[in-house]
């Protein structure tokens, strides 16, 4: 078990290194290949009054002329030891973890992310609870009542659910429930949980439901499939042959096995969401990680884009790590390999 954990940890770290390299090369190497110049990068960080010489200076100052490995190294070292940026009058500290420094907004990226994480976290976790409960419950029931009206209805709704783009359902619900009926909070509202839990829930209700609907739908389908699969297993028959009550068979023997793979998927989904529920956030104009990413891209603020990509990747890698470990706990067979 221990060796297993260690192996996975090393794997996760390696993964992050590679992700960082790829990210870096996509935003710095690819444009170079496509024909961008150091000045091109630099002029992005200059006011409209910048002249060629000033741009050149900045390009030098920001080290866009250095060889790419050097630039990569600088970027990475910033994450661990932090880095400094010349803001004119003073030298701007970007303490570790320095996931880059936006020269457009003149702010380190990390603090921005830190104060956006609560939003995304609230959105994702809330939705997760809803979809996990609804989705799995529906899935199990459909599986057990396979072929009944309930099953068919539930599965039809689920299929519809996975076929609706979240930004569409989001806007429609916003227009109907917020702008129309005025019973839910308008787009863009968010109250920190600690400030006022009730407000918090109220402001996020609509995004939660919208997001959860999509996932619940797909989880219902997954759970149902998994459940049917499991309930046809030999060990279920064995359990019945022991004279076990059916309810117990389903819960203790069926569910446990059926839900294990769901756990994996859930972990990864959550990881990805924490990296930014891009569509939901931009639909409900919630100032979360995803929205931050979009803003960064629109304003073409490379340090932001890279920072947010890395953080998002970090979430995914962590999630999959945790999932793997959990899996090892749930399924004894994994522990060996």
């Amino acid at each position, binding site marked *: 078990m221990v060796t297993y954990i260690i192996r996975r940890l090393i794997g996760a770290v390696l993964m992050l290194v590679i992700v960082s390299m790829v990210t870096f090369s996509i935003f710095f190497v690819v444009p170079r290949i496509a024909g961008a110049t150091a000045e091109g990068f630099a002029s992005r960080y200059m006011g409209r009054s910048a002249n060629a010489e000033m741009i050149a200076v900045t390009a030098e100052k920001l080290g866009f002329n250095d060889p790419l490995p050097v630039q990569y190294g600088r970027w990475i070292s910033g994450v661990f030891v932090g880095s400094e940026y010349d803001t004119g009058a003073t030298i701007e500290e970007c303490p570790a973890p320095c996931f880059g420094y936006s020269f457009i907004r003149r702010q380190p990226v990390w603090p921005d992310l830190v104060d956006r994480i609560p939003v995304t976290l609230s959105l994702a976790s809330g939705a997760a609870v809803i979809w996990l409960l609804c989705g799995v419950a529906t899935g199990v029931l459909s599986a057990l009542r396979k072929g009944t009206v309930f099953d068919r209805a539930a599965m039809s709704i689920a299929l519809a659910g996975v076929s609706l783009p979240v930004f569409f359902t989001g806007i429609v619900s916003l227009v109907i429930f917020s702008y129309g009926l005025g019973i839910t909070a308008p787009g863009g509202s968010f109250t920190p949980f600690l400030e006022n839990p009730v407000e918090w829930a109220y402001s996020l209700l609509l995004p939660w439901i919208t997001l959860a609907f999509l996932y619940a739908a797909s989880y219902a389908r997954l759970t149902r499939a998994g459940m049917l699969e499991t309930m046809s297993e*030999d*060990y279920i028959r*064995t359990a019945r042959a*022991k004279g076990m009550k059916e309810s117990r068979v389903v819960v203790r023997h069926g569910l*446990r*096995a059926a839900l294990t793979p769901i756990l994996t998927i859930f972990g990864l989904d959550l990881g990805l969401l924490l990296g930014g529920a891009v569509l939901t956030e931009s639909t409900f104009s919630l100032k979360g990680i995803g929205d931050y990413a979009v803003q960064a891209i629109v304003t073409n603020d490379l340090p932001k884009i890279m920072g947010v990509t890395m953080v998002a990747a970090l979430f995914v890698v962590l999630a999959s790590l945790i999932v793997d470990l959990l899996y090892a706990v749930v*399924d*004894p067979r994994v522990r060996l390999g």
Partner: protein
Amino acid sequence: MSAPSSFLELRDLRIHFPTDDGLVKSVDGLSFQLERGKTLGIVGESGSGKSVTSLGILGLHKGGRAKISGEIWLDGEELVTASADHVRTLRGKKMAMIFQDPLSAMHPFYTVGAQIVEAYRIHHPVSKKVARKHAIDMLGRVGIPQPEKRVDSYPHEFSGGMRQRAMIAMALSCDPELLIADEPTTALDVTVQAQILDLMRDLQRDFNAALIVITHDLGVVAELSDDILVMYGGKGIEYGTAEDIFERPEHPYTWGLLGSMPRLDRERSERLLPIKGAPPSLINLPSGCAFHPRCVYADRTGGKSSAEVPELLESDGGHLVRCHLPHEVRRDIWENEIKVNLESS
């Protein structure tokens, strides 16, 4: 319907499954008796309905899509009409089952011990401790070394043989009076097979349970059985004592099975009298005798084979055969055509 004297009796049991493609008659009019301490071997190719029968006896088809008719009498109780819940209480306690391929038949997430404990506590309101204790000596009894350690291992940590022993331990944990073993040895290699068979023989003696061994391998039943039922296409086609079946088999299909029976002095794959063709589809059985398309001697029945379904008739002393060939003819073919071949090799 009157309660029979025998411990287990099936009367004209029919288990049919309606499917999109039509009615699957997995078991179609099966009858037999079995006494305590006796062993019945049910033999047949896959799809002959033998496994369905065993699950049917355990009542595992109840509440499913299956259409069940006929009677199953267990120790004076009729199970087909009995409530599902009542049958459940009998399951595991009065009648238990040993499945083939214990790896998939045991839950991968729970320790072997836990699964035995579970089986025990369903029917005995005892503490986990007591149950665990019981589980350990059950494991001991089925010959698992250091049971107190192995009790906490997971199925995948056991060898195939060990696993099957554990499986048996689980089945016997509530000392059932009827034990059904479905292909108990097919998943195992030859030497282990032997051990397991011995084990089962011994255990049956100790427990004095009625044992049904289901297999496609006559070798296995040869080892264990007092009586043997040969099934084909959901019907019993020959029934008799082990001696009847091995010394005086009368059904061409049985001959085929004997012919394909592995012997120490023969290559496993080598077949003397291969049964040509594949098992019939249970949806639309061949007209008349279900076996006739594969039967070498069908032509000797004057077309009866394909015309009408043969009855299961007594040929001599409790030896029943379902075949259109006249008794003498069958005798004759066995003595002069088959037997000689079997021995000559």
